[in-house]
């Protein structure tokens, strides 16, 4: 029996809260970043290294146990974004609840990196989703990701979560419909809408 729960949201209370309360709210958000790793290539290994014992980003409040994008606050795109993967990234980003943040990790997701010239590589993940922090390198060292996370936390601390500020950040991007979030990504050659194979 499904329980009908209201959607948790950053309501007018947070919007009109006095400054000290906003500081507390921002403090709470910046040190509880459930992260969703979009690992696409070699950089993902550096991301994993950062989450492990010797670098340990959990001490910065980054929690790598989000079961999926719907429970995550932060998406780290680490690796080569291809044009075929791009719709999947956009869709998983759309599934994340607001406020949400994106770190682009590595030359590939920043700009296409060494594959800039390729016919199939997207020239930067910022062409499809808004990026908050770029971490340069091929691959960046784990310390660079820690630095990127601290940068993001500084940004969150300075943020105002009023409705207007949220709209400024996300409204330039369309809001997806429920159907878009659950549509299949690939056409099945045998049962595609056209009923036949292209080409």
């Amino acid at each position, binding site marked *: 029996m499904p329980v009908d729960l209201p959607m948790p949201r950053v309501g007018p209370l947070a919007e009109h809260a006095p400054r000290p309360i906003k500081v507390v709210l921002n403090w709470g958000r910046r040190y509880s970043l459930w992260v969703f790793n979009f690992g696409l290539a070699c950089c993902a290994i550096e991301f994993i290294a950062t989450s492990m014992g010797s670098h340990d980003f959990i001490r910065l409040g980054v929690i790598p146990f989000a079961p999926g994008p719907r429970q995550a606050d932060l998406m780290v795109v680490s690796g080569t974004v291809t044009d075929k993967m791009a719709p999947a990234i956009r869709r998983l980003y759309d599934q994340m609840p607001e406020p949400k943040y994106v770190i682009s990790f590595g030359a590939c997701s920043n700009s296409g990196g060494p594959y*800039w*010239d390729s016919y199939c590589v997207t020239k930067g993940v910022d062409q499809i989703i808004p990026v908050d922090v770029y971490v340069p390198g091929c691959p960046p060292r784990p310390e660079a990701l820690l630095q990127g996370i601290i940068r993001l936390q500084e940004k969150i601390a300075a943020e105002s979560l009023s409705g207007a500020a949220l709209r400024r950040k996300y409204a330039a991007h369309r809001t997806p419909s429920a159907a878009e979030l659950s549509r299949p990504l690939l056409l099945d*050659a045998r049962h595609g809408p056209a009923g036949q194979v292209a080409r």
Partner: protein
Amino acid sequence: MKVTQAVEIPLAEWVSSVGDHVSQGFSYFDWLTAVDQTDATDEPGFDVVVHLLDVTAPERLRSVLLRTRVPDGAAVASLTPVFHGAAWHERETHEMFGIDFAGFDDGTGLGLRPLLLPDGFEGTPLRKSFMLAARASKPWPGAKEPGEGHGEGLRSGAPSRRRVQAPGVPPPEWGPR
């Protein structure tokens, strides 16, 4: 692994010759691909290449590279009757180079359909004639062109204006960048 033996095969004997090598013990299909040789002076076309291994003695692997030259537009006979698994490689080679494989059959009856490229992708990206369209709309973000040496850029201070015409780089007729 080191390729120890390469054999050129006439186009007409492609399937029968591959079959001969299989009966000589090269019964493990490693991969199949093509090489764009359309700028060769004699017999321009595409080299279709297949790599076979003899795995009967794992400590002494033998391998053979079989190659045939296919003129642009001509079809090469499919290896799927010999190796079923060649279907994946032939589908990829077809979409990347636009080479047709006559008699292709992977058991689905759907023929040579795209495998890796995104839906609606137009063109055959691994041909040398395929334009890298990103170059037409954005300047190359690197400090150096591919093939440019290390020393000269450092000495002159500014990135060199000289353009190395690598295959696929849009010519000046494509407009300013």
